[in-house]
């Protein structure tokens, strides 16, 4: 087969599983190395470049990086990437003097941002340094969006949230709190050069079954969390049922425990393997003795004398029908007594403020039609991002949207085509320092994943704002960083240098190399010592080698980047090279003309 095209930036990027899986493509292995060196400020700034909120995300990110982490395929568990990010944030010094400079003289373009959540804040973070005048509208009394309203303080303390939001607001964003946009049409009349809509998915799904509207003790999860966050609510009944088993349900049940709930149950319609909540959030809830009840489907709310007394469920069992499809049948019905019910069964988008006659098309599910690359709606100059763009996701996706939307807004305001965008780049640099010396910690460390210490069960319920996770201290972090396999230190192969001595094939501790006769990919995958059957991971194939015309194969799946192939190679045909993935941001687009730097010089 044809030689693997390693000049495609995506090839080596894909090898860095965590970075590839991260929507914002955070350079995870690099910041982990910086933490290993005690360079917490540098680690924080590197994080901030791509994910903007390291302190926040280090606590509450949905961590798409961790299931992707190669360590999880070699060892039992992935590197605690997310908690290491928090280490960078927790142990950093004051970094304010390293934040992007904002020119006093503006570039004359005005941008309106609707909603002060993570998407809008990211756009502001990217555009303010370029000299844009930014106006941000927020319906609540404080910025932060769902990070403030939906994530309880025991997971994300207010001061962490405020600090990282302030970094952005202090860039000179005109924040209008308590200002709800009622009409997009009217806002557009105000002559903004661009409008960004980052209003999230603010409507919790309801459950319209008998009794739903007969009691005020039935709450919509995200609204209830919001009331708690703003201090409007500080108590709940002793027996609480949470309907749904996603991450919002986990926040609801744990919050309920802190507001007086004694017997809190999470009711799931299906079995555990179908739960939407992240494994670690389930663990945390169960650690707090929340009972998670499987296979219960709600039928009705039970009221007595106008008072909610329980909820009726169908107990289900699942089976496969003749065609192999999962089906359920009811075993019996049960009534579970309760004082309050919280519905956490999903969120919907809602755009009551967008008129349907202003040239902004809506499509399926009553969602605006938004371009997946430019984030522009069908009305030029109006952009979407975060949950508002394509429905509920999570913070890190909103950040990724924000970066891309900022590029589009910049190009739109400068009269450039928003579809002609800078491509991603990839640079490689050798990590060989001398004989037997590599400038990264290449020795495989067999340690298991370090456990993040938690506040004692007795102590944590005292106050809603007591953060449960204590985070890694410097010592625990120092142990955890060594588990990182440095996947960004790539094994780069030079076909013409190879003398086919087999040294690399013999020394590879995970048997991922082989020199074999050429063939089709499916054949080559079987020619490795351990066949490369994880098809989600690429197979590297060299060109024909000089002496025999065979090809060098490498299964990227479980390479631990120990560098022994390069260490053992007599001709340096293998080399270990650090890959820098460049994901262009608005500043990179602006660099093409350099106008923004003149603004900065002007003061």
């Amino acid at each position, binding site marked *: 087969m044809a030689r693997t095209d390693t000049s495609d930036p995506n090839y080596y990027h894909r090898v860095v599983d965590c970075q590839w899986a991260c929507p914002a493509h955070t350079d995870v292995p690099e910041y982990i190395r910086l933490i290993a060196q005690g360079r917490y400020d540098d680690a924080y700034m590197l994080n901030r470049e791509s994910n903007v909120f390291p302190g926040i995300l280090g606590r509450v990110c949905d961590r798409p990086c961790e299931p992707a982490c190669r360590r999880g*395929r*070699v060892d039992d568990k992935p590197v605690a990437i997310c908690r290491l990010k928090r280490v960078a944030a927790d142990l950093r010094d004051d970094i304010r003097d390293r934040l992007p400079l904002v020119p006093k003289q503006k570039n004359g373009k005005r941008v309106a941002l609707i909603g002060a959540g993570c998407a809008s804040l990211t756009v502001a973070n990217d555009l303010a340094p370029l000299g844009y005048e930014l106006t941000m509208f927020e319906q609540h009394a404080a910025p932060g969006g769902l990070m403030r309203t939906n994530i309880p303080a025991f997971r994300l303390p207010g001061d962490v949230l405020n600090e990282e939001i302030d970094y952005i607001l202090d860039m000179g964003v005109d924040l209008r709190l308590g200002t709800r946009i009622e009409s997009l049409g009217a806002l557009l009349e105000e002559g903004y050069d661009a409008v960004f809509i980052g209003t999230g998915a603010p409507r919790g799904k309801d459950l319209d079954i008998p009794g739903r509207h007969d009691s005020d003790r039935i709450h919509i999860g995200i609204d209830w969390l919001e009331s708690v966050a703003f201090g409007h609510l500080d108590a709940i009944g002793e027996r609480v049922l949470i309907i749904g088993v996603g991450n919002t349900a986990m926040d609801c049940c744990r919050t309920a425990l802190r507001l007086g709930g004694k017997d809190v149950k999470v009711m799931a319609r299906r079995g555990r393997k179908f739960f939407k909540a992240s494994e670690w959030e389930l663990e945390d809830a169960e650690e707090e003795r929340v009972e998670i009840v499987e296979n219960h489907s709600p039928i009705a709310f039970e009221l007595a004398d106008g008072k909610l007394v329980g909820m009726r469920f169908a107990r289900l069992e699942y089976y496969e029908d003749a065609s192999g499809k999962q089906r359920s049948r009811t075993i019996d019905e049960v009534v579970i007594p309760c004082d309050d019910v919280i519905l956490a069964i999903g969120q919907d988008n809602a755009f009551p403020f967008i008129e349907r006659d202003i040239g902004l098309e809506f499509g399926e599910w009553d969602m605006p039609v938004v371009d997946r690359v430019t984030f522009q709606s069908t009305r030029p100059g109006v952009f979407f991002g975060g949950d508002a763009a394509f429905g509920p996701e999570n913070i890190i996706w909103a950040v990724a949207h924000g970066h891309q939307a900022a590029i589009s807004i910049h190009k739109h305001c400068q009269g450039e085509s928003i579809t002609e965008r800078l491509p991603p780049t990839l640079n490689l640099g050798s990590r060989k320092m001398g004989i*037997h010396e590599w400038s990264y910690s*290449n*020795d*495989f460390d*067999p340690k298991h994943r370090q456990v993040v210490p938690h506040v004692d069960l007795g102590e944590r319920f005292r106050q809603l704002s007591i953060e449960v996770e204590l985070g890694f201290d410097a010592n625990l972090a120092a142990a955890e960083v060594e588990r990182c396999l440095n996947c960004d230190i790539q094994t780069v192969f030079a076909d013409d240098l190879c*003398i*086919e*001595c*087999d*040294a690399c*094939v*013999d*020394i590879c*501790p*995970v*048997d991922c190399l082989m020199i074999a006769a050429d063939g089709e990919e499916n054949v080559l995958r079987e020619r490795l*010592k*351990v*066949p490369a*059957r994880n098809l989600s991971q690429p197979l590297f194939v060299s060109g024909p080698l000089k*002496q*025999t015309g065979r090809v060098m194969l490498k299964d990227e799946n*479980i390479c*631990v980047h*120990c*560098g*022994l192939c390069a*260490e*053992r*190679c*007599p*001709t340096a045909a293998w080399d270990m090279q650090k890959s820098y993935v460049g994901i262009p941001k608005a500043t990179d687009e602006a660099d093409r003309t350099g106008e923004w730097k003149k603004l900065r010089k002007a003061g």
Partner: protein
Amino acid sequence: MSFIRKPLILHADLPRNGVGLTLRDYEGGMSTLCAGCGHDSVSSAIVQACWELDIEPHRVVKMSGIGCSSKTPAYFLRGAHGMNSVHGRMPAVATGAMGANRRLYCIGVSGDGDSLSIGFGQFAHAVRRNLDMLYLIENNGVYGLTKGQFSASADVGSKAKRGEVNRLRPIDPVLTAITLGGTFVARSFSGDKAQLVPLIQAGLRHRGFALIDIISPCVTFNDHEGSTKSYAYTRKSSREAVHADFVPAAEEITVDYPAGDARMVTMHDGSHIVLRKTADDYDPTDRLAAMEHVESRHAAGEIATGLLYLEESEDDQDMHGTAGTVEEPLVELPFESLNPGAAALAEYQRRLR
């Protein structure tokens, strides 16, 4: 060499053999040989061969003398027994070891210096004695440990790294062994595991002395242009006379060989060697033809490889047969048999007077 130990990571899909072990369990310590040394590949081939044969490492005794090659037993089968003996004297020590326990597999690793110069006499007599062992010569044509002087296997006309040309006639261990009555004589190349691994397997199961002369390039002192033992030269000049596949006794022969193209030799333990003819019409059981073939290839500037001569018979023609050693390992014999006592000794001595 590398200063980084090969980490012990178990690939989840790493297969296990019939005795429940993975390839990792057959490896040894960190090699201190030069990066790219052919010897490391030979070690790796031994690891693979033993793993595939389900040989438990503790049933192997690995023997060596002195030299780069002789360091390698430390780099494979960490669970095996072994002795790193005096320069060129490995065959004598191996003879003793096998005499004491003939149920072990004996792998001797030697080099062209250890076997063809200082230990030539020992080597010759081990062949002649038909000692039941696998004897590997990691042959690179130079003395690597003393910075690359020609060894006794260097070809006439071969150039040293600094340009001197060798004028002394080489000793060919393959021809030597055939001449001396060797019963299993093969030549292979460290860079060709497809050929080498089955040869090692067949050699381990052969009753009697099995010699494999392995061209194992010295990357540091003998891998340049003008060398006749470099990777490039060996690849270019190697001509496989016959390809041997090893099929253990318990396994069925599943590969379908075209009729007339393959020939099967049954070994004493019931396993088989399937000899596949290559381009030359070659009969590896014909001693004279074998010698003629090796000589003529050499004259043509080529290297004859493969299983070049094989004499497998049911007779006890190996050392254990001719010397009448006991079947049981000495360690398992009751003390009374091993040491019949002073009276028995006196009686024995009386008979000799």
